[in-house]
């Protein structure tokens, strides 16, 4: 169980990136964070990963407070961030330092097969396509069997076909150990394809606007009516979040106009 309690983050320059975030994520649940640019999604993931400190509030994973990187929490960044001097195999094995050589080879080989890159095992990252690099990054995070996996728009730079196949690779890996997943995305389809729950965020300061359960059966049929209605529900919530955000502004404008007269 991952708990975020009254989490706030104000950057050194005074930017209020997050304010009073409360969220509980069940074990093995997949949560999608959706929201416009700059509403603090990356900030939230970095806090959970222990890369930054919260200004207020706490993050608890099964009761223990998270303040720095933890073995139970893995993250895939928006860019692949592979180490260019390591081959694909060694990149995936990067976090398996304490594991015996035989087991390491086994786990890396399995992860490579799962993301469909077995024949690229000995290549350099520079020789891979963008989608292949992103798959290596996902395998690198999965191979350490984290309890919580954080994904920051991992597919946003890819075309629709590649994205769909990566969704399958991701769900395939997820099926094996069923980690808790927090996925940041701009793509409503992606959220409905992967997540059990969509959390819609609002900017300035970053906060949670709404939570929508997406209790569809897996594997999900993207052409079915329940899929469509789920997509429409999330889109409506997103729309509403943008409107309520702009409403006060319009109100202000009207007041300003009134004063001018």
């Amino acid at each position: 169980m991952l708990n975020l309690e009254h989490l706030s983050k104000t950057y050194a320059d005074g930017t209020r990136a997050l304010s009073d975030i409360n969220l509980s994520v069940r074990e093995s649940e997949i949560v999608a964070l959706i929201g416009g640019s700059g509403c603090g999604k990356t900030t939230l993931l970095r806090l959970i990963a222990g890369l930054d400190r919260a200004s207020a509030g706490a993050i608890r994973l099964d009761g223990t407070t998270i303040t720095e990187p933890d073995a139970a929490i893995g993250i895939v960044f928006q860019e692949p961030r592979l180490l260019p001097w390591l081959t694909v195999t060694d990149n995936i094995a990067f976090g398996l330092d304490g594991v015996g050589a035989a087991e390491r080879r086994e786990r890396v080989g399995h992860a490579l097969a799962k993301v469909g890159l077995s024949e690229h095992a000995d290549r350099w990252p520079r020789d891979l396509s963008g989608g292949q690099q992103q798959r290596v990054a996902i395998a690198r995070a999965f191979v350490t069997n984290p309890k919580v996996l954080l994904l920051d728009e991992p597919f946003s730079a890819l075309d629709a076909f590649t994205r769909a196949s990566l969704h399958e690779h991701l769900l395939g890996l997820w099926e094996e150990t069923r980690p808790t997943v927090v996925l940041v995305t701009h793509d409503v389809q992606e959220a409905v394809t992967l997540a059990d729950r969509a959390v819609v965020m609002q900017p300035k300061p970053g906060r949670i606007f709404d939570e929508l359960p997406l209790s569809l059966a897996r594997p999900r049929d993207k052409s079915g009516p329940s899929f469509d209605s789920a997509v429409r529900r999330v889109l409506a919530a997103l729309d509403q979040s943008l409107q309520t955000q702009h409403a006060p502004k319009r109100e202000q404008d009207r007041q300003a106009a009134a004063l001018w007269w």
Partner: protein
Amino acid sequence: MTGQASGRAAGDAWSSPEGAAALAAPHSAEKRRAVDLRVLLGLFLPVAIALIWEGIVSIGWAQGRLVPPPSRIVATLWGLSETGELWTHVWATLWRVAAGFAIGAAAGIVLGALSGASDTIRRLLDPTLQALRAIPSIAWVPLFILWLGIFEASKVALIAVGVFFPVYLGIAGAILSVDRKLVEVGRVFRLSRFKLARRILLPAVLPEAVIALRSGLGLGFMFVVAAEFMGASEGLGYLLVDGQQMGKPDQILAAIIAFALLGKLADSLLMLGTKPLVRWQDTVRERL
């Protein structure tokens, strides 16, 4: 999906003349030959000038006393190597460069790494070193001679000073410019400070470190000449001074050629030795 992708690639290739040509194997072989020919083009000018000068001197239009023709330079070089004199000088010079390079590079790597890794050490060291760097290195010569005598020690010290600065600056700069995003990957996997240095910082700075070492080596060869000018009884620099004093331009040119070959050889050895370390690099250098 892959089938579709490759289909699209082939489609693109056929739709443009260059793409279609690229699919035809013979073209690339042809292109390689064309590149070889263009390399030869670079040789054309020096070879032509040498041949023309050779011809002018052998016809007797010019004496070639101050500017000896290539044949006389080669003969001088050959003569020096026959008597073994050349090799004494080459070894003397090489030994000095090697010793100075080893000392200067080691000091540059250690201090550069310290000042790149720790903010405190950088604030402590860097201003002093930058101030020292502003002094033209040759200006140290009188002091080194007073301190270390006129023999090897002062020469090696001068070369070491010349090598030190580019290496120090290169290493410190490389560490400071390591991608913060890659360091974060290390933090996510909870590497200790030492492991972070070994598994992320070290490999990340290697390419720039190699470049720093190369420019250090180049300066080493520059400073060995200066060191040997100030009174040496052997070394290629001594051959230069001797040639000037005895009025033997062919000996001077022979020594210059020996310097060029030696410098290129040392640089190539350094490149060859460090190539496995930076094999992963995504640059055009391997094509050069």
